[in-house]
């Protein structure tokens, strides 16, 4: 089974809202060896002008993950998870993620390309807050190895 090129351009339904918790930010910040006070200390975050704790830049992957699950579960996509290698990753922010945010992600398959028997799938997840304002776009390029 190989990746279905017709999924290029497909837009998935928005994910259920993800409520960003303080302890989740602290847990994630520890896991990526962050030491910025605004990741851990609410007073420091408020002093820096934020409503609550600020998430590390790559925290958006936790919300993006919900959309990648949609892609892997798509019956006609032809993506076998065991063959997937993470090729590239990008986060483009309108503002940082802050504790208390209720985030919804919408996945668009930006492109599907064939390259020497492999497929390169670029998955773009646009993450917005409860007001619908853009927070961050998380883009993954997945390399799906061909049948050997």
């Amino acid at each position: 089974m190989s990746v279905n090129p017709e999924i290029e351009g497909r837009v998935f339904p928005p994910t259920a809202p993800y409520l960003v918790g303080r302890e989740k930010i602290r847990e994630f910040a520890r896991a990526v060896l962050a030491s910025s006070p605004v990741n851990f200390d609410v007073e420091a975050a408020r002093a820096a002008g934020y409503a609550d704790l600020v998430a590390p830049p790559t925290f958006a992957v936790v919300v993006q993950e919900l959309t990648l699950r949609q892609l892997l579960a798509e019956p006609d996509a032809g993506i076998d998870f065991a063959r997937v290698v993470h090729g590239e990753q990008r986060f483009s922010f309108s503002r940082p993620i802050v504790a208390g945010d209720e985030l919804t992600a919408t996945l668009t398959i930006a492109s599907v390309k064939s390259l020497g028997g492999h497929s390169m799938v670029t998955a773009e997840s646009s993450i917005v807050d409860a007001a619908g304002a853009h927070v961050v776009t998380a883009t993954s390029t997945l390399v799906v190895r061909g049948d050997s």
Partner: protein
Amino acid sequence: MIQESAPLFTELEVGQIVAEAGFAITRESLVRYAGASGDFNAIHYRDDIAQSVGLAGVLAHGMLTMGAAVQPVVDWAGDPGRIVDYQVRFTRPVFVDATEGAVVNVVAKVGALDTENTVARIDLTVTCGGETVLGKAQVRVSLV
């Protein structure tokens, strides 16, 4: 190193090193990241499964390397909210030995300066055992 205020855009020069750091990754780091991120792929904690798919052994989550590699830039910038864009290519796996772990080194250098928007592009060189593990690792930092 945490700075009270942001570095000044006008004082930066292309080629200048703004941060250098090394960090150790152990199997415990991988378990911790798996829990925090929700990525429980067994190649990040079981040698037998990693080997069954042709890998030399357990490797770090690429997103852990990406997440940790930006932290020296966050500390330099003084606030993670100043990071407006961050991208990497995963070029080589970071193998994490069960007893020895692995050490990842980061050198962060000014790659380009966008004067109109006062955004500095910081280019990361991220290595493990002398080999580059992240390619085109670029962090855009909004400064004043």
